[in-house]
């Protein structure tokens, strides 16, 4: 056993570059997929954390009734959901003069502005106000759509104007009695002063908060164009409900004194925070059940009450939509990455065993079992995969943070959850482990099927044969000698040719898909840098994958043909000419791979466009089709430079030795 283990440790030394190849490809493939996948998980975790920490309202109850919610109804709800989970107020959208502009503004009149327990506001900036005769108000922090208001800005609210706007929106006129009462009212115009700039947990998307004025109400369209055409708010103000003026009693027309705006909103959050889980399984049903309970509490008033749940919250819906898209993109690319990885590992391990043929034969004649021999190679592959896998966890983690971070462009992102998103990583990694095991087992099994006697005989170099091109003299006679030889070589190692072409095709398709995404973001009129960032990540990793694949396959090619190359050197070929002998082949393989890659890329693109609900293949600018091969050829070029020393180092004495 001790000596057997020695052969193992020597194998690592001898096949170090292969070892590194496997580590690298696992690092790139698993790192990329788990990065994409776990970023989607991380976005969801972050959203759930945000929901819990800020006690986000699961439901907003909005009544149309003129009298608003009764104290009894509110008390009953507090009894069910807890006093800390029920807040009350009133909200409406109206045009208000702010900083000399007429701005569409959401006005929240909150009964508990300062100590609110639901939808907890977070201070961004707070100014000390010394004026005591003004009502203090908060404004939502500015972003891409919401406009900036400095602290200490004074805003005048004309309640008659606000009520008139509301009535006109409903196609009515403000009723005469109220109008008269308001005209007579002293405090119909109130001045407020902005004390704080805050962020609400309900509005973190920077692309704008839809107004109540949208024709579909609070419905969020499920396509990006629909979202982009929504009417959005210019400002959001949070005011104490005490600012709402009261009309004195004027019997018989006005029996009792009353506020001109009633408590029309209840912000209600569920005690059981675990139910949400980023719109997880069962949440929607749970919300529906609660609505039934609430309806029974409201009694006959229920028909006037609208429920606004989180499915009507643009920020929540957009973030979860993006994270779903990211995850689905991950699924699509996962298949491609895993496929290529398995192919490369299979090639590497097959070649490795071919090279150790003599040793395997020797062990077999000594009576070692086939399994024990193959076990060594499985161990080799597993250790490489293991190292690559552990490393890829960190690559994935870095990538996930990067993607979540990039979401800051579209969202005032809730803090990124530090919860470890292992699921995606573990799935991908175990698939890779199984694929590697399978590939190694397959390659080893094939070899142990041969009798020891066959194994002892060296495997003759693959015979040459005439390629189909030779039957077309028109082409064949025009090829220079070098290219004739290359053409035959390409077809001689047909299975490696196919493997290279398939791998390059998949990589090219991935690069092309990444470029197409980028194009759609830049020119599609869609302002979503987060999708753009993902496109860039896809391009970078696809290019990396291409480089690793071409490196591995060319490396195998060079060692397979060591003897031929050594002979060329003895014949007086310069290093560059010797390299050309191999590299011409690599470039031809790459070129063919790119052609197939174009075909494959249309499929991947279509899938991605379907996921994102935007973009078409025809809409992709033509020049990207030229950029993709540049990427792939550049990767090939880098690899050929990188492998040059290996060719320079080939020992001419190889040509003198017997065939191993």
């Amino acid at each position: 056993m001790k000596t057997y283990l020695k052969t193992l440790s020597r194998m690592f030394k001898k096949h170090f570059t292969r070892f590194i190849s496997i580590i690298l490809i696992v690092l790139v493939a698993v790192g990329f997929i788990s990065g994409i996948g776990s970023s989607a998980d991380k976005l969801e975790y972050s959203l759930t954390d945000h929901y819990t920490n800020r006690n986000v309202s699961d439901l907003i109850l909005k009544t149309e009734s003129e009298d608003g919610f009764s104290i009894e109804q509110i008390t009953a709800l507090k009894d069910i959901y807890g006093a800390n989970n029920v807040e009350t107020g009133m909200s409406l959208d109206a045009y208000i003069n702010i900083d000399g502009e007429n701005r569409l503004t959401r006005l929240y009149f909150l009964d508990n502005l300062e100590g609110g327990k639901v939808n907890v506001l977070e201070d961004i900036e707070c100014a000390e106000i010394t004026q005591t005769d003004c009502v203090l108000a908060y404004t939502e922090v500015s972003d891409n759509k919401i406009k900036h208001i400095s602290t200490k800005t004074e805003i005048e609210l004309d309640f008659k104007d606000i009520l008139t706007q509301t009535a006109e929106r409903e196609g009515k006129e403000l009723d005469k009695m109220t109008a008269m009462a308001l005209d007579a009212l002293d405090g119909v115009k109130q001045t407020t002063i902005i004390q704080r700039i805050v962020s609400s947990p309900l509005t973190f998307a920077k692309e704008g908060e839809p107004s109540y004025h949208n024709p579909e109400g609070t419905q969020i369209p499920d396509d990006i164009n629909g979202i982009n055409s929504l009417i959005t708010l210019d400002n959001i103000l949070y005011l104490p409900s005490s600012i709402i003026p009261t009309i004195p009693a004027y019997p018989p027309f006005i029996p009792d004194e009353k506020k001109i705006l009633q408590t029309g909103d209840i912000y209600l959050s569920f005690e059981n925070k675990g139910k949400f889980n980023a719109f997880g399984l069962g949440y929607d049903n749970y919300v529906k059940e609660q609505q039934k309970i609430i309806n029974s509490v409201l009694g006959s008033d229920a028909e006037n009450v609208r429920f606004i749940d989180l499915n009507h919250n643009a920020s929540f819906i957009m973030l979860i939509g993006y994270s779903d898209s990211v995850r689905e993109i991950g699924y699509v690319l996962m298949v491609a990455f895993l496929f290529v990885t398995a192919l490369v590992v299979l090639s590497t391990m097959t070649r490795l065993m071919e090279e150790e043929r003599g040793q395997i034969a020797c062990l077999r004649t000594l009576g070692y079992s086939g399994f024990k021999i193959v076990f060594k190679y499985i161990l080799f592959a597993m250790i490489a995969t293991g190292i690559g896998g552990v490393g890829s966890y960190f690559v994935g983690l870095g990538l996930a943070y990067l993607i979540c971070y990039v979401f800051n462009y579209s969202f005032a992102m809730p803090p990124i959850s530090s919860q470890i998103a292992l699921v995606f990583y573990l799935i991908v990694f175990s698939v890779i482990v199984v694929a590697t095991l399978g590939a190694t087992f397959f390659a080893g099994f094939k070899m142990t099927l041969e009798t020891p006697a066959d194994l002892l005989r060296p495997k003759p170099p693959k015979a040459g044969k005439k390629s189909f091109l030779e039957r077309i003299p028109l082409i064949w006679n025009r090829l220079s000698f070098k290219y004739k030889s290359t053409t035959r070589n390409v077809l001689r190692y047909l299975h490696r040719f196919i493997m290279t072409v398939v791998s390059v095709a998949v990589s090219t398709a991935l690069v092309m898909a990444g470029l197409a995404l980028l194009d759609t973001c830049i020119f599609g009129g869609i302002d979503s840098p987060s999708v753009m960032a993902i496109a860039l990540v896809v391009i970078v990793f696809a290019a990396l994958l291409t480089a690793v694949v071409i490196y591995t396959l060319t490396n195998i090619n060079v060692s397979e043909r060591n003897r031929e190359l050594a002979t060329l050197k003895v014949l007086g070929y310069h290093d560059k000419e010797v390299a050309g002998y191999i590299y011409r082949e690599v470039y031809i393989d790459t070129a063919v791979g790119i052609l197939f890659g174009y075909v494959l890329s249309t499929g991947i693109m279509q899938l991605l466009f379907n996921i994102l609900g935007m973009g078409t293949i025809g809409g992709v600018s033509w020049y990207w089709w030229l950029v993709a091969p540049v990427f792939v050829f550049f990767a090939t070029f880098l690899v050929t430079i990188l492998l040059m020393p290996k060719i320079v180092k080939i020992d001419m004495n190889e040509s003198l030795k017997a065939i191993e």
Partner: protein
Amino acid sequence: MSFLTLSEVGKEYKTGSVSVHALKDVSFELEDGEFVVVLGSSGAGKTTLLNLLGGMDNATSGTITLDGKNVTALDKRGLTEYRRGDVGFVFQFYNLMPNLTALENVEIAVEICKDHLDPKDVLTEVGLDERLNNFPAQLSGGEQQRVSIARAIAKNPKLLLCDEPTGALDYNTGKKILKLLHDTCKQRKRLVIIVTHNSALKDMADKVIHIKNGMIEDIQMNKSPRPIEEIEW
């Protein structure tokens, strides 16, 4: 000065602090048109000598001159040019390109030489005019070695180096190959050096160089070499 001159040629391999002399103080002179056999048991330094003569390695001391050209002074590029134009190599295991036909295997060598012979003519000369378009896998060992010889001859080299040319062949085929090499030497007036451990070959050589432990043990001149047909082993 002779056509090929070696004077005090040495080759030292260093591994860490240990240095091994593969060759030491090797000196001899050979003339154009001579048929020379270098004889030695394995490990004697035959391959090292072959590497130095063939421009595949640099000597650590001494000088090698071929037709007035100082081979030991050449840099890497110069050595490649030397192998390209001045040396023809015949390998023990033929080393043909498996994906090229017999004709193409000769062509790939002459393609980079200036002053070469016609590949078809040379192949006809070695008796392969019927096999021009066959791939190595379709040829017997003897035929493959003929292609290998044709490849070496077609370069029109100054020096033909053969490393155990019959090592992988059966007795009769081996004899035929040696005859071909001998004929080439005499008809084309080329210096042919055969490296072997088969001492029976010494009778057919004009000169026999015995190597042992990296040094020349003896240089033997044959006034009347015997034709290969008469030699048995």
